[in-house]
């Protein structure tokens, strides 16, 4: 057993322990130091884990040193390793950004609480990704639900409480459905460990197919609510709009993604394609994904509030992920996982830059932001690159992602679905470009207006710039990431 094998557990422990350590010290500075250094340590460990997995392949880690059916196991393959790095990179960048911004959003007393919640959240999300035990996943799901509602409500305004309640209710509904799914699977097989469930399910498949359909249905709807699958997304716009910028970035970049990864694991590890292929579930997921890609964008076009628009765009982007899963092919799955990367980087950069614009100008509505590019050229440039990536301008990661979907669609012999991918990206152009254009060129509204130099200093923008560099990097050399994902997919089964 190599040293790195225990790192995933160490990452989760470091994050959790730091989360509980923060309230002990009451000062903001201590909270920040502990929170960020824990994230930093976890970031390094996640990279080492990925390197180890790349070298030696996937492995199981027995948390309590008991063997599988009795003890809890982690399963770490390339996909899990990649997700670990992705989650830690984004959360580190967001935490870095929060140093400069969170004081404006929260009252002084709440700042340490924010860091506690973020570390709890990221730790539990990684737990969902790493764990190979369904019930263990459920425990992490519950922790993450509470923590993610927490980072919405930590800014104690009226609308935040309302949004968080809505989020909490729907999210608990989702958890409840997942729990029922787990219970059903357990009653069928007597196992909670994923590979063991899979073995048992395959042996009893034909006679219990209806029960399995119900179980998959429960997982699909339950996790679909949590990861904003259209039309179960209704909690998302409120939660993402009213939360502080750093929270919105984490919510859309990471929280949605962890549940999708769990869903992928349930499809591929728990049930396996041999069973799922016989059931109509994937076609429904594909359909909902496709509808979400279009409807999310259409809803985004109708929004007047900048953050709300970006939030609806998340619905569309998550539609792509479900679209890829729904195709049911290896390439489709790889495209979906690549899209998780693309969206995590792009959307967190978009939320952080949109949040900066709102914070500095005090304006929420898109129509008030004409000429903002003159006042905050760099922030607007970051927003522009993020928007162009989602529109699908070549050499940015969004283009690569769309290309992967196109290849997957053709490989699956469903050429007609190309239209959905392309129309959706055209719709993206319809809401991102007007903001960029009015931001830089809407000069008439500037007449008679005093130029306020409201630009954030470059130092404070650095974390967002790091995220944008990620967007460009995956655009220029996305091939490496894709082949890594493709190499990791067999280990998922």
């Amino acid at each position: 057993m190599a040293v790195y094998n225990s790192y995933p557990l160490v990452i989760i422990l470091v994050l959790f322990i730091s989360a509980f350590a923060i309230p002990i010290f009451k000062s903001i500075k201590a909270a920040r130091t502990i929170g960020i250094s824990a994230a930093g340590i976890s970031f390094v460990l996640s990279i080492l884990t990925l390197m180890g997995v790349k070298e030696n392949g996937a492995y199981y880690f027995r948390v309590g040193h008991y063997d599988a059916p009795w003890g809890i196991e982690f399963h770490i393959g390339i996909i899990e390793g990649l997700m670990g790095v992705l989650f830690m990179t984004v959360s580190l960048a967001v935490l870095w950004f929060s140093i400069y911004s969170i004081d404006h959003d929260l009252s002084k007393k709440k700042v340490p609480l924010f860091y506690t919640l973020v570390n709890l959240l990221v730790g539990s999300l990684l737990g969902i990704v790493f764990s190979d035990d369904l019930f263990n996943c459920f425990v992490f799901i519950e922790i993450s639900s509470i923590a993610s509602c927490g980072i919405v409500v930590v800014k104690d305004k009226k609308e935040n409480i309302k949004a968080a309640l809505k989020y909490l209710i729907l999210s608990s509904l989702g958890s409840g459905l997942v729990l029922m799914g787990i219970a059903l699977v357990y009653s069928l097989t007597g196992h909670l460990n994923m590979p063991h469930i899979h073995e048992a399910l395959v042996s009893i498949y034909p006679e219990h197919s209806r029960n399995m359909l119900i179980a998959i249905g429960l997982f699909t709807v339950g996790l679909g609510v949590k990861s904003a699958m259209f039309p179960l997304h209704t909690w998302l716009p409120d939660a993402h709009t009213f939360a502080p910028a750093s929270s919105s970035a984490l919510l859309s970049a990471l929280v949605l993604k962890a549940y999708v990864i769990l869903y992928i694991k349930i499809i591929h590890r728990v049930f396996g394609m041999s069973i799922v292929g016989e059931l109509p579930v994937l076609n429904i997921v594909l359909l909902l994904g496709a509808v979400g890609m279009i409807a999310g964008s259409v809803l985004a076009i109708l929004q007047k509030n900048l953050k709300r628009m970006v939030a609806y765009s998340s619905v569309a982007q998550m539609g792509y992920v479900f679209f890829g899963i729904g195709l049911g092919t290896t390439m489709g799955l790889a495209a979906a996982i690549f899209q998780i990367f693309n969206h995590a980087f792009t959307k967190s950069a978009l939320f952080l830059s949109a949040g900066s614009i709102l914070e500095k100008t005090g304006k929420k509505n898109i129509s008030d932001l004409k000429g903002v590019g003159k006042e905050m050229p760099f922030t607007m440039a970051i927003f522009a690159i993020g928007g162009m990536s989602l529109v699908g301008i070549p050499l940015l990661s969004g283009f690569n992602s769309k290309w992967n979907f196109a290849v997957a669609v053709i490989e699956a012999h469903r050429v007609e679905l190309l239209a959905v991918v392309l129309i959706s990206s055209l719709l993206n152009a319809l809401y991102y470009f007007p903001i960029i254009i009015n931001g830089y060129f809407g000069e008439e509204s500037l007449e008679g207006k005093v130029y306020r130099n409201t630009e954030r200093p470059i130092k404070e923008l650095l974390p967002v710039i790091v995220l944008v560099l990620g967007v460009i990097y995956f655009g220029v050399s996305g091939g490496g990431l894709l082949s890594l994902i493709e190499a990791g997919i067999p280990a998922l089964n």
Partner: protein
Amino acid sequence: MKFLALVPIVFPMALAAGMHFIEFKNEKHRRAYLFGGVFLNFIFAMMVLSTAQPEMHILKINDFMEIYFKVDGMSKLFLAMTSVLWIFTTAYSFDYMNHEGKEQKFFTYFLVTAGVIVGISLAGNIFTFYIFYEFLTLSTFPLVIHTGTREALASGKKYLIYSFSGATLVLLGMILLFSVTGNLEFMPGGVLQGFAIGKRLTAAYVILFLGFSVKAAMVPFHSWLPAAMVAPTPVSALLHAVAVVKSGIFALVRTTFYLFGAEAVKAMHVRGYLSILIVLTILMGSFVALHQENLKKRLAYSTISQLGYIMLGILLLNEDGLTGALLHLINHAVIKITLFFCVGIIMYRTGYKTIGEIRGIGKKMPITMGCFSIASISLIGLPPSNGFVSKWYLAMGGLQENRAIFVVILLVSAILTAGYLLPIVVTAFFPGEMERELVNKEPPLMMLVPVLMLTGITVVFGLFPNYILHFIQNISRSLI
């Protein structure tokens, strides 16, 4: 020197960025910086064209996404044309933009566009082409809305929507083509050797053709072009008579002859449907131009009709037709830029925009209107102008296909061309309103010299077409 091709692409963009850091002491210094830069870039471009190693692989992301430049006859033709015309436009813009204002911004995007156009001409596969094609939209958009008025912003929006819809079709076509061939490199004769022409390939061709024809302003995708005439005249001239619309045409040549190949397109039996649209383009452009009061709009519709000629020549798929098309590509660029520059001079000196206002103006600016007349005659295609040569080859190409109807259309359209251009000349020179005092209103030399030189080029191409004709004939022979 694999990265040599990047020099003329990146250099103007660096110049554009540099403009924001250098404090120019006065207007003269900035002019020297800009003109020197554009001229230097012309030399860089020529160096790339004469390089011994014509294939430059820059960056490979995967089989589909590869940035790759290649120098061949077509890219030589297009790059030489655009970079020569760019120099003239730079010189012309100095004084003109002085009167429009916001020069810093104008020249920034003007230079960026210069780099993007080099990328378009050198692209060695359709993916590279597509990248620069998208960037072209983005970099020309600020130029279109330069004046910042409500009307300009509305036109700009229209321009973006049309262009991006076209580009989306192009992407769809590319993906379909790639799913069959797995190869998107521009090669003479196409990449389809050994592939059966199936439904998917036919769909790919039609989709690519329609996608690119948005930029080439084919009816019914043309309406962004007249709307974009709100831009300052140098922009209209260079971008909408030369660079933007011609890159659409250039793309059609690349797709038809370098991706699919003439044989494959012939076998698809879709030419008939496409040529209906093209004939409509030719005739509608001319008819609408006839009753445009605004001079620039009249020229814009004329562009639509003339671009129709070129597309018709491409779709004839024979040697003469292609020769005529490519020759007309060059001739129309030179003629149309002259016409636009003359109209720009009128606007600059007098502020007149419509044909009713310019009565008798030929007496006040004889050189400008003289150049305008020569260019008009060339565009109509009277011998011995260069327009005659290109139309001759187009007609020959039509006859080879046994389509006498095309020749008739060309003739009708030539008459219409005379119908919308000659009235301008006649109004300007003949019914002179002598009561207005006769002052010389010729523009500054920096504007007049480019116009004179361009008119000179038009005349020389008409009298001695052989050099360029041979070059073009070599290209078209290699393709068919």
